[in-house]
């Protein structure tokens, strides 16, 4: 089970730590907020929290739940709303775009016991992620230039397994992912195309008839033409991106993009200096997009540039989608030479 992102999009942030996966019972018991009112002296008044006195005060450093983890935060503001205290938090070491209003049940005093809880969550989640916490990918990033590079937060950040895609939310805050991996959202009809592709090859023993027309090369060229007509100009930057895709495709095809059953076909057809982008077509190009985040993870790219890159890739996918019926084959060929005419899905 993949580790959830630091900030689970689309879900209520309160009590999110209970929604995430199945922490062991002992962890749940450890994590239930304890009333530490009596221990630290930072409270504004009294020991027990009467209904009209806040448990935490402005400027106080606290530990706060956010998603499945606990972070150090500072209370910026305290307000009483509808008989309930609300606290505006700034997470220490994080960009202020993460600042938010929370209710008291998200907060804990900065005691040793609570820090133990913080550690426990850290450990639990670091183990689950595909790499250990100190992966090179775990550097938190944000959109406002102020790179957060504090050591302790490097450890706290959950490194998403490479290549994991998530739905992109439209909210600006939700796009500030701490993952380094570019998320590429593949349109749903193309996702279905990939499932059909899987079905044909792995379940029905069929293959894409090669060489294809249009080839990957053709498609990339058509896209460039399409863009230049649409925009009246082509920028070099788009050109580089497309060259990059072709380059990845040629190198990655035999290594990452083939189902086992396709290897024979590959070895027969792609010999000597033949480049895969002149033989294969949209079906395999689409598979590249599944792997693209992984490949791009090896390149350090600035946030702003990542966003532009993502836009370009998305636009390209939309182009594929628009031309789905002409770019993709509707039927694959049976291994024994029987052509699958028309729809070959098992109905």
């Amino acid at each position, binding site marked *: 089970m993949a580790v959830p992102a630091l900030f689970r999009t689309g879900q209520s942030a309160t009590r999110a730590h209970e929604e995430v996966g199945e922490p062991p019972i002992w962890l749940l018991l450890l994590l239930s907020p304890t009333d530490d009112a009596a221990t630290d002296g930072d409270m504004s008044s009294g020991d027990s929290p009467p209904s009209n006195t806040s448990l935490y005060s402005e400027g106080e450093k606290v530990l706060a739940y956010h998603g499945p983890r606990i972070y150090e935060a500072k209370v910026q503001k305290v307000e009483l709303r509808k008989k309930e205290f609300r606290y505006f938090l700034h997470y220490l070491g994080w960009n202020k775009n993460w600042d938010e209003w929370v209710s008291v049940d998200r907060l804990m005093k900065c005691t040793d016991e609570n820090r133990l809880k913080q550690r426990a969550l850290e450990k639990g989640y670091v183990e689950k992620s595909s790499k250990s916490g100190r992966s090179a990918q775990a550097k938190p990033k944000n959109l406002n230039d102020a790179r957060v590079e504090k050591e302790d937060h490097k450890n706290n950040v959950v490194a998403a397994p490479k*290549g*994991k*895609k998530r*739905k992109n939310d439209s909210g600006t805050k939700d796009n500030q992912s701490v993952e380094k991996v570019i998320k590429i959202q593949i349109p*749903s009809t193309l*996702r279905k195309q*990939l*499932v059909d*592709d*899987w079905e044909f090859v792995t379940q029905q023993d069929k293959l894409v008839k090669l060489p294809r027309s249009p080839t990957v090369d053709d498609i990339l060229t058509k896209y460039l033409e399409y863009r230049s007509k649409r925009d009246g100009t082509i*920028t*070099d*930057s788009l*050109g*580089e*991106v497309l*060259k*990059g895709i072709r*380059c*990845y495709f040629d*190198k*990655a095809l*035999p*290594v*990452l*993009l*083939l*189902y*086992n059953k396709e290897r024979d076909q590959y070895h027969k057809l792609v010999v000597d200096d033949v480049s895969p982008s002149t033989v294969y077509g949209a079906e395999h190009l689409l*598979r590249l997009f*599944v*792997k693209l985040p*992984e*490949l*791009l993870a*090896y*390149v*350090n*790219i*600035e946030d*702003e*540039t990542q966003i*532009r*890159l993502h836009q370009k890739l998305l636009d390209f996918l939309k182009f594929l989608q628009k031309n789905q019926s002409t770019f993709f084959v509707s039927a694959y060929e049976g291994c024994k030479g029987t052509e699958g005419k028309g729809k070959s899905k098992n109905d």
Partner: protein
Amino acid sequence: MESGGKGREEEQDGISVHSPCKAPPSSASSLPKEHPQIELELKLLQALEIYPLVKLQGIHRHFVLFGLMEFLRRSFDRQFSSDEVLQLLDRFYNLEMLKPDDEEMEILNHEEDFCLPQTFFVKEES
């Protein structure tokens, strides 16, 4: 750092791809004159901290170049062609001498069967 000019052998320690002293083509430079050369070069060197030179030779080179182009575009608020950027780089480094990063060989070393992630098989809400 010394400003632009000839005779740079001493400048770039440890960079083996440093090209031998080359006189920059005088008026052959297609770089626009509105920014002093030195500014361009400085920005480029800044950019190289993010987009390491060594990656300009491997499979990621187009995306690295894209990153450089975008960096300069934002710094000077105009488009840079890939040629311009390569030309700028060429003043400092002999790009042909670059050997691809070892790290990049990692992902391509292990042949694996393509595997469609589970999430594709699940119907997504909206």
